[in-house]
């Protein structure tokens, strides 16, 4: 499957899962569908051997968008797509915030912001110290950068030349209550991160060629991809609206949204 269709299927699953479970964060999950589609297509991961020590590691640090990770893993046959129907239901192992227990392919459980980058840094450091040739990726939200712990890792990774570490920020510019700019402005983000010693890629987070190029680029420094995205991307009435951090599609909205994806 090409990445365009994979991203479309992720969005479709996400819409259905959050609608059925009446769960929040649909906008956050739609925002990263393209990033996940391209990343999972290019990472060294094997659904038949999800614990292979040589696999690339991916942590969704913005765990609230977990539905999108479950969706991409099901699409890649890490587990059956039918399991997606249980998302957010009583007794389900598919929690709203991504959890690894009993879910093949989920590298790490998150949900509290500001944890993933340090753990991904630990993976990258282990690869260096053990001379293992894997890459480590963490996908953060923009609001998540408010958490101080990230900046400890941002300071650490270049100091230790962890060029096998990639931090991707889903820069959709909307956080929990309002815009990032109004809440706690991150700008000038590129300059900030560059000054910490990272190789920064400022890209369109919905352009698959740009995402692939950034992921594949060889660098001598740790890589920081600022993926400029649109929260709710792909569903017109959800785009750039904070309310879809909380609401899920009702029946009519689900039909309308799925139709938009097919167009």
């Amino acid at each position, binding site marked *: 499957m090409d990445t365009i269709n994979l991203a479309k299927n992720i969005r479709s699953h996400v819409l259905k899962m959050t609608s059925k479970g009446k769960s929040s964060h649909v906008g956050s999950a739609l925002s990263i569908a393209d990033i996940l589609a391209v990343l999972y297509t290019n990472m060294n991961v094997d659904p038949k051997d999800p614990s292979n020590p040589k696999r690339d590691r991916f942590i969704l640090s913005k765990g609230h968008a977990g539905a999108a990770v479950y969706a991409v893993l099901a699409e890649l046959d890490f587990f059956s797509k039918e399991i997606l129907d249980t998302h957010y239901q009583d007794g389900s192992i598919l929690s709203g915030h991504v959890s690894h227990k009993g879910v093949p392919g989920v590298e*790490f459980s998150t949900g509290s912001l500001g944890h993933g980058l*340090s*753990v991904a840094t*630990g993976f990258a450091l282990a690869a260096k110290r053990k001379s293992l040739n894997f890459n*480590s990726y963490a996908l953060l939200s923009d609001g998540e950068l408010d958490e101080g712990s990230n900046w400890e890792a941002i*300071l650490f990774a270049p100091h230790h030349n962890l060029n096998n570490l990639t931090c991707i920020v889903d820069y959709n510019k909307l956080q929990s209550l309002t815009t990032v700019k109004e809440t706690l402005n991150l700008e000038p983000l590129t300059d900030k991160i560059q000054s910490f010693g990272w190789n920064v890629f400022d890209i369109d987070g919905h352009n698959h060629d740009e995402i692939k190029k950034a992921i594949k680029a060889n660098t001598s420094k740790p890589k920081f991809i600022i993926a400029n995205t649109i929260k709710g991307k792909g569903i017109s009435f959800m785009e750039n609206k904070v309310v879809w951090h909380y609401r899920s599609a009702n029946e009519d909205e689900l039909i309308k949204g799925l139709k938009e994806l097919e167009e």
Partner: protein
Amino acid sequence: MRDAFIESLSKIAENDKDIFLITGDLGFGVLDNFSEKFPSQFLNVGVAEQNMTGIAVGLALSGYKVFTYSIANFTTLRCLEQIRNDACYHNANVNVVSIGGGFGYGALGMSHHATEDLSIMRSLPNIEVIAPGDDFETKEATKYVANSNKPSYLRLERASHIYENDLENSFAYGKIRQIREGNDIAVFCSGGVTKVAMNAAKILSKQNISLSIYSVHSLKTIDVNAVAKVFEKYSGVVTLEENNLIGGLGSAISEICLDNRIYPKSFKRMGLKDIYSSVVGSQEYLRDFYNLGEEDLIINVKKIMDK
């Protein structure tokens, strides 16, 4: 205990390339031998305990047996959520080591008094909590947690603690270890404050009162049968800990009693009475100040015996 820990860890690391020690920029002069001998298994992460713990988890999930090292509350409370979500939920072999448990850094002030750590760490699922009473237990606990393949918390004293005894010199996680034999009153201790009980026992022996002293080094898994036997044998039992009374050793022993129909003939919990200390001083001074010293234990023992 600090030196005993490093000595033990260095010995293990000689034959185990997966041992990894991370410090949060502390351990001046203490960690040099380890870092020089095992540079690829050592990291000073800087003054950043949240990142330290997250990195430790990443390393542990990649096959390392990781020890995080700092003083007082920095390895525990500062990064509690990383311990909870990242280490404990993922059952990662991350062994959190705190130097200066209790009032070990008494003169440095409240920020450096680790007096709730045992309670808080005990309440986390999956982690093992160990407060060794002497250097021997420290070395054995270090060996044990390195290969337990799950998270653990080691609360250590700065000072060396060696007791003369010809009793049990064996360590097993979850067991209680008798370090002094006596006939009158039994004392359960956790951590370096065990020294207080040993000193009190010496004084009391001159007054023909003999204390039996047990180190309850493991604070989550506790041998219920062994505890029951102690309550059966002695007319009174005292628990002694340099920790808040809420949630520590005394609480654990009380819970064991109630859950297992053990009815103490006489029971006294000694610990901190839900306070922060704004008074500073040496560890000995603060123990006395908060009624955790030898004289206090002697008074409590005599009260029980007078009943």
